[in-house]
């Protein structure tokens, strides 16, 4: 722990109103130099609004902000940066067409006059990346990097600016274990250098590991700030949701029926080999594994998004040949992809339009879409999945992540599949929405559907699934029964190291 206790940031009585919405009310938030201060809260609790105020993107409706000893007013991000405040966004906010080095020094490239000192810049960027333990070529075009590498560049960019206050918003959501460990090392180093670090995360385990203090926000209000010592994950969850969450992962018992989806010895020739499993009606099969183990690739291949070179897929006992998603839908398979924004929703359309998208033909009579059927479907889905706000005409991009995810699931259920593949259905959604999504999945299998759930979260896998297949390097394990499941067992299979 550090000794420095000077106040780096003191936000007092911060409120922010948007037309019709009170995003923050009277929030107090103070961070000391040389500490890591975590901010937790459900989606929509006001974390990002608070950070956007700190970042100069929004002006608060009322309240005061002190940085160091001086009261400040920030009108734009540049003002915050001039005060030594740097923000690392959850969403990559870099320029794909520039090089890594140019991104690290974006907006403040070194030069004389107008001329760029490229060599100097590349060398400096290489030094920063090296310090972060990131093996990234500073001359590489940023867009060619993987998401996790881009995330590291984002962090390098903030770090290179030698900030006094650094804000990290879900920085580990795209990092591997190794990279997360490296990030934590560098965060501790920055903390010991006296930098004030604001750390926003859904991952309470990480918060417990890295933070010195934690502030809980709920519904736009500050609930509590306290030292991390003596607090447990369960305490934080209770403060975040404002109620006891007795069982975060409710498991609903369902009668297991006959085999619905069966894959045998499938390979795509590259990413996975000889994968076999089956899912039965009323069953949730978990599919988990380490980085690049090939889980998503298996799902995409089954759904016809990529090709199989070997093996067979059967639905309800009949072998099917699937070369495109539309064939998969006809065979009775639905797939909810991981990348909600990219693949799952049409952001410009309403919730209703999104839901009816895959089955418009069924709603069409003589070439005309039946308005009433369309509306009824949306109404039912909104109700069944308790999509909030309960308004089918709202643009889907205005919904929170969890509610968008519910709408995406609703959309595929409208096609009445017999097997549903969910790829990381709860990534990036808050605790409450997570429980609701689990509840929905439980209802679906109770209704006789077969579900394959891909997830990286072991507590989720352990809590929800009837059987689990663990993938490693493109190969799949034998399914583990519920009674055989433990985190240690899964990790042993995922890493290939037997536990002592």
């Amino acid at each position, binding site marked *: 722990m550090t000794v420095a206790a000077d106040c780096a940031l003191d936000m007092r009585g911060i409120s922010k109103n948007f037309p019709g919405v009170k995003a923050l009310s009277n929030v107090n938030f103070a961070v000391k130099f040389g500490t890591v201060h975590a901010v937790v809260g459900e989606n929509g609790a006001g974390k990002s609004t608070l950070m956007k105020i700190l970042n100069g*993107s929004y002006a608060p409706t009322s309240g005061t902000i002190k940085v160091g000893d001086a009261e400040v007013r920030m009108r734009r*991000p540049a003002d915050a*940066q001039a005060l030594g405040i740097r923000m690392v966004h959850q969403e990559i*906010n*870099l*320029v*794909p*067409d*520039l090089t890594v080095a*140019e991104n690290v020094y*974006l*907006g*403040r*490239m070194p*030069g004389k006059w*107008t*001329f*760029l000192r*490229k060599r100097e810049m590349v060398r400096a960027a290489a030094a920063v990346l090296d310090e972060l333990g990131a093996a990234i070529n500073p001359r590489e075009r940023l867009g*060619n990097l*993987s*998401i*996790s*590498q881009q995330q590291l560049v984002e962090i390098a960019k903030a770090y290179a600016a030698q900030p006094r206050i650094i804000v990290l918003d879900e920085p*580990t*959501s*795209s*990092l*591997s*274990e190794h990279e*997360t460990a490296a990030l934590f090392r560098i965060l501790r180093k920055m903390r010991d250098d006296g930098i004030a670090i604001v750390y926003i995360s859904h*991952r309470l*385990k*990480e918060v*417990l*590991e890295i933070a010195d203090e934690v502030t809980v926000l709920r519904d736009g209000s500050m609930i509590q700030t306290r030292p991390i010592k003596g607090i447990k*994950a369960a305490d934080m969850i209770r403060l975040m949701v404002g109620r006891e969450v007795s069982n975060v992962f409710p498991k609903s018992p369902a009668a297991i029926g006959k085999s619905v989806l069966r894959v045998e010895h499938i390979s795509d020739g590259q990413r996975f080999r000889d994968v076999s499993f089956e899912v039965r009606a009323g069953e949730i099969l978990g599919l*988990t*594994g*380490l*980085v*690049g*183990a090939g*889980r*998503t690739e298996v799902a995409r291949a089954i759904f016809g998004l*990529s090709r199989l070179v070997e093996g067979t897929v059967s639905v309800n006992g009949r072998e099917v040949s699937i070369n495109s998603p539309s064939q998969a839908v006809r065979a009775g398979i639905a797939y909810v992809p*991981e*990348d909600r924004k990219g693949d799952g929703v049409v952001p410009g359309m309403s919730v209703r339009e999104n839901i009816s998208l895959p089955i418009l033909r069924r709603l069409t009579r003589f070439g005309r879409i039946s308005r009433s059927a369309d509306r009824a479907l949306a109404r039912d889905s909104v109700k069944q999945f308790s999509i909030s706000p309960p308004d089918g005409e709202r643009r889907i991009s205005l919904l929170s992540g969890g509610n968008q995810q519910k709408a995406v699931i609703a959309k595929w259920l409208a096609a009445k599949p017999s097997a549903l593949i969910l*790829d990381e259905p709860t990534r990036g959604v808050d605790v409450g929405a997570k429980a609701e999504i689990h509840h929905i999945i439980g209802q679906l299998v109770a209704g006789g559907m077969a579900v394959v759930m891909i997830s*990286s*979260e*072991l*507590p*989720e*896998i352990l809590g929800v699934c009837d059987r689990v297949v663990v993938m490693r390097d493109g190969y799949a394990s034998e399914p583990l029964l519920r009674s055989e499941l433990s*985190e240690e067992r*899964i*990790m042993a299979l*995922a*890493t290939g190291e037997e536990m002592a």
Partner: protein
Amino acid sequence: MRFLSLVSQHRVVIILGLTLVISALLVPGYLSASTLGLGLDRAATIGLIAVGLTVLLISGQIDLSGGAVFALAGIVSVILQREIGILPAAIVGILVGTLAGAINGMLVVGLKVNSLVLTLATMLIFRSLAHWITNSQPVTGTDIMLSLALAKIYLDVFTLRSVLFIALIVLLHFWLTRTIPGRNVFAVGSNPAAAKESGIASDRIVFLGFVFAGTLAGLAGVLQSLVTNTGSPVFGSELTVAVIAAVVVGGTRLEGGKGSALGTLGGVLTIGSLTIAMEFQSVPAYVQQVVSGLILILLVVLDRAVTTKGRASGTRPALVRDNPITQGGTT
């Protein structure tokens, strides 16, 4: 896939080479210095405007009014010759282009409107102004000899215009690759939000981009009027399309963030040599446009083939995000 991406990377060179080879086979005497000089001079008019448009497209904007500004600037420079003399008139003509660019830039930045629609509107306005000023009649200048001097060919190949164009391409290349504002133009076009967050003055860059593009369209128009000793309200009416075609053939992305001066040089030369070859063969103008259109389609398809394949086999974000250990372990 590798082959395709190689083709895509060097596509300007390949297309230009193919154009020259095919033209040389079909058109007798095509590869002579005088033909090349003619082609280069023809290309320079497109090229001057294309230099400005390259910067604008990289910054994520577009300017459709270039052809109209070209005409208007030329007319002003000819009409004013009697009043204030040839050189001052030429300068005023170029400044008309600058002013038109400033108007475009101010409206796009100030009103935060789509530049495609806005410059479509200003294109109509500038074009109509040109007709209004001249009563839709061509105007002639005072000194015929000047136009002969300007059309003079040096070293068998170069004219004043083509030298100016090539010099500007070299400067543009240097500016885009070696200067801070040059790199910032890419940032603004590739990810405006990130550029803004990083403190880059995006609005100023976009505004200056329009001013630059307008000035160059004005310069090209004034030169055209001096060389022909004529200002005409119909000058440059099909230029905009040719310029956009040249810049896009050169590999500059319409959505912004990607492009190069050398690519634009290649694109301009391709369009220029294609035009000359077809004119030599007396191919009617409308067929020429068909050919240009087909080439553009081919390029767009090639681009798409390369990018979609690249995405399918490249590293998918999903692969690197999975990590049960950090997320699932107990403390």
